């Protein structure tokens, strides 16, 4: 025996990893070959680069600066609804971007709630479009993530340290310097890097709240090069720039960060003895909850009014979205399960690398590459929906692997020897042991994949012609046509579909699962 026997073969996973690598690297190569460097970067391109970096830095800093007091308050207070609030902090990850934007517009927009209140006092309404709108939306999405990551680090501080510090008579500030500041110094760079990387590839937010020469991200510039000028060479050049940025940021984020914010055990409150400032904590918790809940509540309220005002187009788009999400989830599982299995059986190097490739490429870069590759063969709009499903799956793959790999490792460590000693075949092991034991994780990963695909507004915008639309794209088009009632109804429908798909799959995985 040249190597340790394994209950399951790594080859299907290696094959899946090769497919993913071919998809991502192939499209990147297509982009690189097609990029027209002769013209170099125009002033508009440099502006897009500057704006992309500025908004990502500001979004990361604001998210983290606000997350620290919120996480500190959550870490040391116990109150009814705390568990629900922490669960809610996970929701923006699967919240369709277009839904959140509609909600933010209704709260912070020109004719939104806050502007109305300002108007009562004779103050001018706030303007949400431009840099501050983009940053506001990014903070909305990433404050919860940052809070979860920081909270996790807070909860990992051993209770004995707080006990010892209390015994020594440390009060608030001394306790902070002694225990919490070192933890924050360790944790925050990683959190900032992760959020910075996420915001670099922002497309839907920039598309709806940015725009114009002064608020265009590179991702948006790629889209504009496509749709306004149909200048593939320039789209490819911008894609190459975007790729260099995201790859560098993803590397930095992976290097600095640990944990993934999906961690459980966050519902435990720290026992502390330094009192703290209850009123201040209550303020931070209430403010964060309001910031997250008001836009969602507003979508639900306005959506209920708009439900009866929706054209048939919306329902057709919803049906399309359900099909795309289902296909995308299927592709995701067909790739992720064998890859997780291969990593668990010890053949991990290249498989893991291929699994995180998706983090380095942005959807529009891959979309551009696929467009270049497909166009000589067939009209790309014919493949708009399959391509969307495929790219959605590739983008969800790194998250799915983070969920599946630890479970697969655990099961192989626990049951591998028994399966081997029973001479169980590899396929039987997969079917009768691995999949049944991993059902909760499979359900969770599938739920995330389905919700992400359902709410995605990215590649579809590149490929679709006016006849085809997924629900997010349809909502965007309705907003562009100022049919806000119908858009709000569609947003409520999309919210229900995304959350419903997640809930159904996640529950389905845990239903009757034995410990």
């Amino acid at each position, binding site marked *: *025996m040249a190597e*340790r*026997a394994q209950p399951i073969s790594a080859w299907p996973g290696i094959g899946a990893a090769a497919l993913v690598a071919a998809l991502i690297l192939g499209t990147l190569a297509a982009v690189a070959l097609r990029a027209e460097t002769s013209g170099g970067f125009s002033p508009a391109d440099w502006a897009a680069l500057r704006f992309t970096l500025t908004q990502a830095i500001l979004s990361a800093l604001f998210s983290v600066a606000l997350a620290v007091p919120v996480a500190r308050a959550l870490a040391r207070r116990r109150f009814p609804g705390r568990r629900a609030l922490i669960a809610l902090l996970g929701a923006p990850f699967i919240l369709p971007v277009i839904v959140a934007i509609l909600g933010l517009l209704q709260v912070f927009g020109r004719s939104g709630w806050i502007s109305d209140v300002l108007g009562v006092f004779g103050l001018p309404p706030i303007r949400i479009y431009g840099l501050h709108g983009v940053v506001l939306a990014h903070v909305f999405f990433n404050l919860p993530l940052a809070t979860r990551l920081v909270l996790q680090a807070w909860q990992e501080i051993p209770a004995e340290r707080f006990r010892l510090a209390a015994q020594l008579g440390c009060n608030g500030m001394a306790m902070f310097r002694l225990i919490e500041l070192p933890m924050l110094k360790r944790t925050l760079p990683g959190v900032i890097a992760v959020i910075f990387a996420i915001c670099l590839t922002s497309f839907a937010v920039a598309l709806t709240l940015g725009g114009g020469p002064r608020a265009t991200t590179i991702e948006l510039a790629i889209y504009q090069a496509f749709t306004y000028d149909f200048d593939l060479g320039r789209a490819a050049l911008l894609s190459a720039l975007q790729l260099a940025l995201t790859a560098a940021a993803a590397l930095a984020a992976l290097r600095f960060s640990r944990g993934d914010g999906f961690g459980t055990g966050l519902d435990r409150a720290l026992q502390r003895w330094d009192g703290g400032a209850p009123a201040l904590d209550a303020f931070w918790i209430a403010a964060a909850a309001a910031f997250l809940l008001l836009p969602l509540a507003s979508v639900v309220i306005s959506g209920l009014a708009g439900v009866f005002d929706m054209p048939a187009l919306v329902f057709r788009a919803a049906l399309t979205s359900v099909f795309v999400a289902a296909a995308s989830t299927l592709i995701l599982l067909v790739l992720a399960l064998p890859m997780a299995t291969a990593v668990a059986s010890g053949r991990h190097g290249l498989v893991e690398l291929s699994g995180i490739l998706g983090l380095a490429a942005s959807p529009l870069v891959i979309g551009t590459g696929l467009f270049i590759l497909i166009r000589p063969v067939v009209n790309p709009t014919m493949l708009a929906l399959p391509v969307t499903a495929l790219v959605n799956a590739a983008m969800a793959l790194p998250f799915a692997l983070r969920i599946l790999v630890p479970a697969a490792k655990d099961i192989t460590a*626990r*049951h591998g*020897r*028994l*399966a*081997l*000693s*029973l*001479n*169980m*075949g590899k*396929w*039987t092991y997969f079917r*009768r*042991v691995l999949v*049944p*034991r991993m059902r909760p994780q499979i359900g969770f990963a599938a739920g995330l994949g389905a919700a992400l695909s359902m709410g995605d507004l990215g590649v579809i915008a590149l490929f679709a012609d006016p006849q085809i639309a997924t629900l997010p794209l349809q909502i965007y088009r309705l907003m562009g046509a100022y049919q806000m009632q119908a858009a709000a109804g569609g947003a409520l429908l999309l919210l229900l579909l995304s959350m419903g798909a997640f809930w159904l799959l996640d529950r389905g995985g845990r239903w009757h699962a*034995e*410990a």
Partner: protein
Amino acid sequence: MLKLDRCVIENGSFTLSADIEIETGANVAIIGPSGAGKSTLLETIAGFRDLKKGQILWDGARISNLLPGQRPLAMLFQDGNLFPHLTAAQNVALGLRPNGRLTTDEEAQVLSALDRVALPGFGDRRPAELSGGQQSRVALARVLVQHRALLLLDEPFAALGPALKAEMLDLVAGLVAETDTTFLMVSHDPQDARRIAGQTVLVADEVVHAPAQTETLFDNPPPSLRAYLGS
């Protein structure tokens, strides 16, 4: 006869050499200080570790080149002997047919094996619905239907209380006597060895010593065993 022919096993920091023979039908306890390599020895015989040198033979045929499932042996581990999502009967059935459906005749064998370990009518229960002792019995029922010539026990009953452990050991002794199985059992407890094992193998100082009569060995222990026993 099981023969460890000039075997050298490497496990991280220590090596273990073994050159011993064990007669067919013998009941052997493996005893020695913790960390001496008792479990490592069993895992190597079962095929979960590679030999550095030497070979393992069963009845003259080399088995050290076979995959774990192809060796003529069944093994019970310290834990994880049952799949928690399968019923007792399904777990036992894996011993007969790990990859397919049972014939009617084989289903009858599963039921009679459960009867034999005093668990009639427990076939539909999952491990979580069974007590620790009952779980051990299900694993033994699977060993019964496997019909292997050699049985290796890596302290599968260590988590049970003393009375229950003694009961399980007696059950094992009865079963192996019935089926003329050779069996090797890792143990920390000299009482276990005296209870059911005619011979004892001492693993100490990086050497697997030849089997000796259990009574003789404990009545007149060599220095390394005396150090372990503390007597």
